[in-house]
């Protein structure tokens, strides 16, 4: 099988995702990813012009949950996985200029 994703790319993606893998794991992922890409290559041969992206889904009821809050027990662990934390916040490089700060609490 032709390799379209290289080990160097996989290592880069892992680094950007801040995930660490052993050499064996990387080899196994490399095989899987190339299989997946090859499968999509095969799908690309089909004419899907008139097929909507959600055509395979039935119109039935999706699963719902009822409006009862339930605390997640791992919330204390969350900050431990972050590279930079202060005062309970995730710390990121400053996002806005000082004069804009009042206005940019959120994007939505």
């Amino acid at each position, binding site marked *: 099988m032709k390799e379209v994703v290289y080990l160097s790319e996989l290592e880069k993606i892992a680094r950007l995702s801040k995930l660490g893998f052993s050499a064996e794991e990387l080899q196994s992922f490399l095989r899987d990813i190339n299989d997946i890409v090859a499968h999509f290559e095969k799908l690309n041969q089909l004419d899907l012009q008139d097929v909507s992206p959600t055509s395979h889904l039935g119109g039935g009821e999706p699963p719902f949950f009822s409006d009862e809050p339930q605390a997640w027990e791992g*919330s204390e662990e969350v900050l431990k996985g972050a590279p930079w934390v202060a005062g309970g916040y995730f710390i990121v490089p400053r996002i806005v200029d000082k004069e804009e700060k009042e206005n940019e609490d959120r994007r939505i």
Partner: protein
Amino acid sequence: MSDFTTTIGLEVHCQLLTQAKMFCRCSTDYIGKEPNTLVCPVCLGLPGSLPVLNQKVVELALRAALALHCQILPQTLFHRKNYFYPDLPKGYQISQYNLPIGIDGFLEFYSQGVRKKARIRRIHIEEDAGKLVHEGAFLPPGTSGVDCNRCGIPLVEIVTEPDLSSPEEARDCLMMLRNIVCYLEVSDGNMEEGSLRCDANISLSSSSLTGVKVEVKNMNSFRSVYRALSYEVERQRKLLEEGKPVFQETRHWDEIKGVTVSARGKEEAEDYRYFPDPDLLPFSLKTEMIEEIKSGLLELPLEKEERFMTQYELSQGEAEILVQDREIADFFEDTLRNFNKPRMVCNWIVTEVFRNLKELGTTISRAKITPSHLAELLKMVDRKEISGTMAKSVLEEMFTSGARAREIVTRRGMALINDEKELENIVKEVIEKNPQSVADYLSGKEKALQFLIGQVMKETRGQADPELTRNILIKVLSSEE
């Protein structure tokens, strides 16, 4: 000066009153909580987590859509709106795109006494983003802090057509929209805390000029919506009159400086790469569910306002004040059950009741006074057992102690002095003590009479029957001539 037409459309975000978030079961009670304590793998966007929709979100959004006379689409779907910004860790917001929950509705409201209508283009459901902080002793220099407690709180976005033609109309439309979502218990509508947020698109055009749309953001109260849009009308008018172009851009309202400021770096239209969220199924709303919610819709503010005008013969202004808060409107009607004089009850509510609520910093539902207690007090005023002035002071105590009017009046030994003989004696004393005012009155100064009535009130600690006092004063003074 050229004649310009102002065109305004609103985009309003309301946080829905659910207990749990939109796609996970974290609590929505985030105000004042430690940062990043109401989070889970779903709202943090951790790999492998899957969203499951909270049914209540659909119900509340549907309630709002139906109240705004929207057409409910047979199938609805969630899309991913991709953007890269730290307030949403997933890298996309789950929102709705081409299949929102409702389209083509309308909203009616009064503006400066005239009934207006704004069409609703769409109402859709989406999730809120986290909170960024840029200031605080704990922040290392040159950084911002991210709190994900607000991530995934359900919102509805309501978009009007550009049917509003002045800043006043925009404000009044928004006030009605807020009243509706509060009445329906869809949202608490609190603009200061950001559970209701409003952006506006505004343009000025004339017969020879096509309007250029400017988006105004960051307006945190009805007053700032009005001020920001008024500022923007003047700014654009001035540019156009000077023959300068208006740029299509986003501008932020600066509440303190009272100006709108261009938001730099966002001139380009963003490509959000919308696509159907593969983790969430498209779904159809069952007819039974729609019908059930429709039949459960309560009387809306405008219907109530117009009913108050016809049923109780109140003016539009009076009715509008009463219906702005559903609890006040209910309090008004509950008071009428025991004391059926609408105009008088309305007057007391909008002046004295409001004043006491404001002074105590409370709401009618938390106040110690009940509708039947107010009715009892007003009955005593109406029967002239006590004067209006006395009643005001009694009401104050009712608000602080929760005691009944009758009890307070008895304890304080309050009773209206309506014994003519007794009042006449007091009047004569007052006349004797104030020869200058008597002379003033006799030389035609009407104001002097008010002063003398005031003196009688002072002598009787407000217990004199005002009307009787006035008559006796006039009678005694005319015999002095």
